[in-house]
């Protein structure tokens, strides 16, 4: 036990300095006490260099393309496409390559991101509607089928995928809404996308077991 003559309190410490006021302590009985806290080594340089570097390069790249595009402008805003690609690569970094994220969720996010990306490209190089007419419906069909295969292979863990599976299935109905709004003109890909989605919804309802149903109840409780 030690004592601090400024604070007038007793101190339990092997150190000779008062933790309250830094006065040098007076030792009362010269005992060595057990530390109650470990010495902790903090890593001061612990920050993610790769992420920061990538962020810096993203901003730099975007800026450079905008400037070059502006300087050599000939009616085509191609820098929008490169910025869209930079943003898309961030979706890969933050979602697709991480290993603790549900794979069905990755498929959902990638479907949405790639759809947006193609729509942006289509719009930038002069709208012809190839993205919404062909790419988006086919992407949704592929995503639906991929998750379906996933659930068949990994039947025990179906309940882990079911929420995202339903979300992708619901996405499949967007083309038909766009069709009736007059944005999509191609009936076949839209029809197939709707049919696949509808079958996935039906299949989930018919084949889902107790686990899947209780998972849905949990996820959707409000």
């Amino acid at each position, binding site marked *: 036990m030690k004592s601090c003559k400024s604070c007038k*309190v007793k101190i339990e410490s092997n150190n000779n300095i008062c*933790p*309250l006021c830094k006065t040098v302590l007076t030792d009362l009985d010269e005992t060595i006490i057990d530390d109650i*806290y*470990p010495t902790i080594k903090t890593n001061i340089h612990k920050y993610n260099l790769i992420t920061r570097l990538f962020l810096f390069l993203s901003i730099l790249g975007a800026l450079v393309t905008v400037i070059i595009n502006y300087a050599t402008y000939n009616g085509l805003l191609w820098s929008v496409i490169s910025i869209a690609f930079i943003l898309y690569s961030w979706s890969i970094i933050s979602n697709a390559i991480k290993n603790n994220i549900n794979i069905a969720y990755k498929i959902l996010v990638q479907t949405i991101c790639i759809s947006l990306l193609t729509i942006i490209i289509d719009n930038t190089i002069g709208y012809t509607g190839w993205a919404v007419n062909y790419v988006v419906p086919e992407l949704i069909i592929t995503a639906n089928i991929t998750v379906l295969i996933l659930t068949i292979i990994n039947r025990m863990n179906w309940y882990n995928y079911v929420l995202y599976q339903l979300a992708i299935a619901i996405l499949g109905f967007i083309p038909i809404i766009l069709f009736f709004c007059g944005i999509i003109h191609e009936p076949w890909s839209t029809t197939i996308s709707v049919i696949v989605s509808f079958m996935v919804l039906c299949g989930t309802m018919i084949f889902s077991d107790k686990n899947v149903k*209780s998972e849905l109840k949990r996820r959707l409780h409000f």
Partner: protein
Amino acid sequence: MNNKFNYETKWFKLDNTAIIFPVISNKRLSSVFRVSVTLKQEVILNTLEESLEKTLLCFGNFRVKLKRGLFWYYLETNKKVPLIQQEQDYPCTFIDSVSNNQFLFKVTYFKKKINLEVFHAITDGEGAINFLKALTFNYIKLANKNDLSKQALKIPCVEVFSDTEDSYIKNYKKVNFKGMKIKKAYRMVDKKIPLSIVSTIHGYIDTNNLLNLCRKKNVTITQYLSAILIWCIYKEYLNGQSNKYPINISIPVNLRNFFGSTTSTNFFSIFSVGFTPEREEYTFDEVLEIISKQFKEQLTKENLSKKISLNVSFEKNIFIRCIPLFVKNLILKIIFKISEKTSTSVLSNLGKIDVPDEFKKYIDSFSLSLGITESESVKCGVCSYGNKLVCTFTSKFETPYLERAFFRYLQSEGIDVVIESNGVHNEEL
């Protein structure tokens, strides 16, 4: 393994106060608090693991992982086994569930000390102390099989088995939601310690001495300590000058006794006491009188019941329920940012911790450390066991002005204080 197919996963909704914690928590604001017990013998890892396994069976709300629904977060049974490690972090650091087998609590040990760090979404101070007590009893029973009498070995480790009721909903009375007044409070500003370092200073006080002094002044220990805390902020950080913002201390209250609940999930409420230094040179007794009066006014069952009902009515509102989670998170974050400004610091008193006589000789002390936030950079956790009351200050400030003033004041009132720290203030940073 037939039950692998038929076994339905158990799940809970987050209780009313727990809703906020998953939203606001990150590495900077951990929403974690720590309760520790210091034993009289060194902790043995294997025995601790065995006793944790036993203890978990009695606490359904600890055996969970946090999941995200479309509208709310929820807790789901976690079938993994929790990890126990030797203490290697500062108190109350953020619990990264991925590296923690998805558990929302962490048990660590160091020499004679067992720490339980808890993410506030699963339980409050009382729930955590009950868990720690159960863990300690199980540990003592296993480690001292031969010393303990047959009767002592039969003492149950919990009083109530796995009660996970949401007592907020249970005690809710329908009210009309009225807007709350937000009054900004004074905020202590000083140079902070870099990185994730947290300073911890324990002050050990003789409970009887303090109790006698409080009796003389006709106040409770919590009232007295919070008055000292406010007084020290007033003296140290405001230099005894007047200020337009009040110095407000948030005090968590355990609602179990008020409403007769035994739940091991959250069941607490926070009320705020404080005073606005309108003129200069208040005396301590004036402050103590203002504070103890506020305690008496606010700590009534009607008042607390009104608070619960107000909070639950937010959760029960049909419009709020239908908002998707990510939008709800934004709203809650804004509400939290605003409400955070109304408090200068926190003083949490867990009260007296009782232990069966048979186990008393194995336990030295309990302590409570609170996780700090950006705006509340010093917090004080109090609990007492036997004749030892422990005031623990966790702080982010480089110089411990508040702690120093607090303990010096107690000492000047004739109450002996023994200080122990985690040594942050002595380190060369």
